[in-house]
């Protein structure tokens, strides 16, 4: 059985549906979850400014979506999915930009600062992860960074639990090959 690298934040019951106090609730959610979500976004987009922007946009989206959330405990899941979608938008923008540029001008997946902090061995792993297909990367980050269960990942990604298991399995096998391990 896998172990989550970090404990999953709880306490999402603070969310109410009263729009008049939504700013305060968003503020509380931000203080409780922004760092973790920003780190998740960093792992997906590879640079801090984009990660912070994605998370800020997700919380701004919460102002609009809060009144429509019929289950207050879903606010964090709503934010997580918003961040995932925001990261996809960033990556799509980069892909478009990449098409307009020569191969030598390709955008870095990881900023120099992030890579330097990670160290050689970790950089190798991160580089290998960055070369995986988007969905595989998302599954790995949700499972091994956020510590979500496969069922939770399935809900977030809008796929079946079986798809999550098989995607993770393929991702780990590919990763093992890339970093020289035997799957």
């Amino acid at each position, binding site marked *: 059985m896998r172990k989550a690298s970090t404990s999953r934040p709880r306490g999402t019951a603070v969310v109410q549906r009263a729009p008049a106090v939504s700013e305060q609730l968003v503020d509380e959610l931000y203080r409780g979850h*922004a760092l973790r979500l920003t780190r998740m976004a*960093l792992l997906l987009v590879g640079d801090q400014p984009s990660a912070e922007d994605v998370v800020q946009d997700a919380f701004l989206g919460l102002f609009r979506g809060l009144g429509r959330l019929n289950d207050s405990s879903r606010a964090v899941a709503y934010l997580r999915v918003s961040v995932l979608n925001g990261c996809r938008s960033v990556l799509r923008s980069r892909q478009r930009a990449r098409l307009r540029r020569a191969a030598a*001008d390709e955008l870095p997946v990881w900023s120099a600062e992030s890579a330097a*902090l990670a160290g050689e061995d970790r950089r190798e792993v991160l580089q290998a*992860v960055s070369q995986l297909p988007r969905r595989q990367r998302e599954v790995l980050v949700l499972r091994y960074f956020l510590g979500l269960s496969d069922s939770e990942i399935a809900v977030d990604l809008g796929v079946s639990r079986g798809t999550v298991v098989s995607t993770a*399995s393929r991702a780990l096998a590919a990763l093992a090959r890339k970093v020289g391990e035997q799957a």
Partner: protein
Amino acid sequence: MKGREDMPAQVEERLRDAFRAAAEAITARDLPGPPTPRDRSWVARRLPEWTPRARVRAVIPVVAAACVAVIVVAATLVAPRVLAGPPGRVAATGLAGAPRFFAGLTGKPQDNALNIYRSATGRVVASVPAPRPDREFEAVARLGGDRTYVAAAVASSRACTTQLYRFTIGPGGRPSGLIPLSVPQITGVVMELAGSADGNVLAYKVGGLCAPHLVTGVIHLATRQITTWSYGTGGLQPPMDGDLSLTADGSALGFMAGSSANPYGLANVWVLPTSAPGGPLTRHARKVLHLRTGVFRVLLSNTGSQMYVETAAAPRGGAVILSLYSTTTGKRIRLLGRIGPGGMNRAELSFTPDAAGKHLLIYGYFHPGHLEEMNLSTGRLIPVTTAQPPVMDGAQPSAAW
């Protein structure tokens, strides 16, 4: 198909470790503060107040107009770029060592706020509200190297006075509140503001309908001493001056001056000791440069021995280029790079340096999406791709890095 139990624990552990180490590059201290509804655009703020049907009806023409705009933009911007091939610049997420945030005025009266932008993405991360709803911001400048800034805001429209305020930008982009500077109010509308890197000297230019003529002033903050100089007294084609910059210790003021009749911009660049007595602006100043191309913008280096000069590439136009000149000889030391396409609209660009004088943030009113960072040592230019570009105020410099 393998189950997750079959996967080697070692790979999973390396993955967790790499994710954790990479993620910890971001700390709670780095994060900007929580967003507020004010951070949303006016469109986003108003849409929820409408009924869904009204929203749809209202959005249809907007969407149609947006489609047309997208087609036009694609035809005029994207297609030529694709046809011309790669621009030879590397897109990235900001220059290493450059400030993470800058302050800028939007120039939209309904906002009446001073925005804090993330340098790497051009996104607004926070706003500084005006001291009072009727007190619009006029200008902003960096003061010193510790993320302290000065903003000028109308103190009294009737008396035509301006109050200066100090504020700081925190590590996460959150601004402090405005604190009035303990200096006398300035008469007139502040059109430009510049601060020294040591944080001791401020330079400003005032004009506007309530000022008899353009006045340039310097404030020594330690002594609260203010010295003013004027240049020209009006006429059909009055002499113009501006583009103020200070050396790091505030001992010298750089500016452009010349006739507004020159279609290629002001041609002369001057340096004035800030200890000079008040009076005519050029009486104690030294002319350090005269260019036939005209000068769009000029920035004195921190030492004052060099200056960064934005010009057209040729006397009758061409691309907008940035060069390094000597203030001693008036000769060009080297070309730093091409920063704009130029053209009939005199599409000059504004720029603002960081406190260390090592990087330049380049922005443009005529190209609102045009935001670039330049390393002044190497000339390396990084375009910032932004979906929410800062829209600056006319031709006046209105951002501080």
